[in-house]
């Protein structure tokens, strides 16, 4: 058996990496690195839940880690990657409203905000320090994801912002309470549908109608993805 204190230390280090990944999603300009960052972030989430399982021994956490790995580390990034190749946009240079530096400063504010908010809300709730920090990181991740949706222009980046928001919600869920596993499954289904929808539409956004039809045909989404 591994020492729980050691595991807690590892989890705290992972928290830092999660925050760094959120900051990278806000500021990176190359689409493929945003996608990679998201993949890493989801992987970190899976790792955190495995470590928590080692501490707590709740089997739902292990299931959750498996689900996260399958859907958010493998399936969704693979799909978005294919879309990115099709629409031939490599970089998302445009920022609306906020430049990356401002967003980063703002996200520090958001982290502080979620810390004060949660410490007030959970004041009378006996959460251990680790779990409290997990909740704070979860909430900040959600808010930072929202910032991405606000400030980035390309649909794919917006979608990734949404996905990272959802990572934050899951993280908060893990640390604050034991959500029934079926809930997590439902959210993942919801995510997959949304990603499908938005990326199909995204193909259309940067083209006229005729081009759009041609591109959709090339994508072969409806015919089960024959030779591309």
């Amino acid at each position, binding site marked *: 058996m591994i020492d729980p204190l050691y595991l807690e230390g590892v989890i705290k280090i992972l928290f830092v990496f999660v925050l760094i990944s959120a900051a990278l999603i806000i500021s990176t300009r190359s689409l493929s690195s945003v996608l990679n960052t998201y993949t890493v972030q989801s992987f970190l989430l899976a790792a955190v839940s495995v470590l928590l399982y080692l501490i707590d021994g709740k089997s739902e956490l292990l299931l959750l880690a498996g689900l996260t790995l399958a859907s958010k580390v493998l399936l969704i990034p693979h799909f978005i990657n294919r879309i990115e190749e099709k629409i031939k946009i490599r970089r998302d240079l445009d920022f609306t409203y906020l430049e990356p530096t401002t967003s980063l400063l703002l996200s520090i504010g958001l982290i502080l905000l979620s810390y004060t*908010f949660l410490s*007030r*809300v*959970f*004041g*009378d*709730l006996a959460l251990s320090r680790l779990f409290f920090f997990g909740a704070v990181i979860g*909430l900040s991740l*959600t808010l930072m994801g*929202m910032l991405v*949706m606000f400030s980035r222009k390309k*649909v794919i980046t*917006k979608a990734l912002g*949404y996905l990272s*928001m*959802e990572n934050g*919600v899951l993280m*908060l*869920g893990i640390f*604050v*309470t*034991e*959500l*029934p596993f079926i*809930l997590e499954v*439902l*959210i993942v*289904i*919801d995510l997959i*549908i*949304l990603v499908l*929808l*938005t990326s199909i*539409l*995204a193909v*259309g*956004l940067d083209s*006229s*109608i005729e081009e*759009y*039809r041609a591109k959709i045909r090339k994508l072969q989404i409806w015919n089960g993805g024959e030779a591309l």
Partner: protein
Amino acid sequence: MIRFYLLAMGAFLALGLFPKSHRLMNALASGNALLHLALTCTALLTLDLPVRYGPSLYLDHLNLYVELITVLGFCAAAPYAKGYTESLMEEGELDPKNLKLFYLAFNLLLVTATAALFSDNLALFWIFAELTTVCAAVLVSILSARENIDAGMKYVFIVSGAMLFAFLGLIFLFTLSARALGEGTLSWTELMENASSFSPALLLASFTFVFIGFGAKAGIAPFHTWLPDAYARAPSVSAILSGLMQNLGIYGILRTYALLRVSDSAPQASFILIAAGLFSIALAAFSMLQQRNLKRLIAFSSVEHMGLLLIGIGIGTPLALFWVLFYMLVHVLVKEALLFAAGILHRQYGSNMREDVRDVFKLQPRAAWTLILGSVAIVGMPPFPLFPAKFFILLESAEVSPYLTLAILLLLILAAASFSNFLLKAFSKVTEEGEEKGEGKETGYRKKSFHDPYVVRAGMRIPTVFMLALALLLGIWFPEPLRVLLEAIVLELGYV
């Protein structure tokens, strides 16, 4: 039980993938709506409410009532959709290949909305509400023109992003119930029973998050930005449907607020509701003032009405709630009539802009009169039923603060003024004798001159007249069963 419903509906919808003719697809959609109408009416008349089937299906007066409103809207939209999509296809705006997708999303929207309303579990409610967003977004972007896709995306991102906050709220609620009951639950009924033992601070926090999510779904400012685009860009039918989905958001807020009423944090929650409501009305009223796009005007009027509903809920007296519920029904009736008429004008002129409307009484007299009567109804003039609804909500708001009443009243007058301003400017233009004739808009696919009246198909005309007539009827005669139903809802939500 909800599983069986979904299975049955899944089989039913699979049927919809076979037919090739438009008539069959449309008949299936109408059949679907009528089937739901029949089921809802049977449940309302025969069941001893509230009933619960299995772990997740829960029927009470409130969700049956909201379902009734939704289904009424669908029943009217289905025949209208036939004529409307046909003319869209004639003019090449809608790809015939997408027709099947349109009807699939149309039917799925009704099924998911029904499942959302009747699920007792908040998490199920959340996920089905999310799915309605997806279906509605497909309907908005169905025309596969760039602007439509834009509007659809905006819709998905804003509403789904906000709904994630609602999910955060659900997590808080779950934690609360786990602390109070030993085991976490998200079932409406159990939460309602135990809400008084929850910690007020945490309850308020979860309410706020849930409010953000469902507020965005209902189109409350500042999360309303998807709404004008969706209304303006989407084909009229789809706009109606996404409008119906706004009631789903209000339903969620109503339920969650009922949880809070017994706790100490009720005053803060109702402050949030009233503030958001007032902000929505103000923002909508000022955006409507110089609005030149008819559908945008109608969209902002939706924001305004949702704001008034929120204020009604926030006031929190049984009388206010009674009229809020009535308001939800009438708003859908009148709004549908308006959007139907706006759709006919859009077919006629190929545009929603005020400047493009000419000779309206010669070309589309019926649609013009529907718009005029509908506007009279929507701004709350008697004899239309929005008058008593607005009147009593305003009356009750005076108990919170007379300044609130005054502010709402002024803003409502502003909204009414913008409607009349629009109608006067749009409908008073008549082509003089000898003036240049036959200048159709040359926009690629639109070759015919807009001096020929657009032939309104019977399927489009009947629902329009029907909705308006129903609204007028409700204004003159308040049916006794409806009163009993609304009072039962007020009691069930714990307002005494």
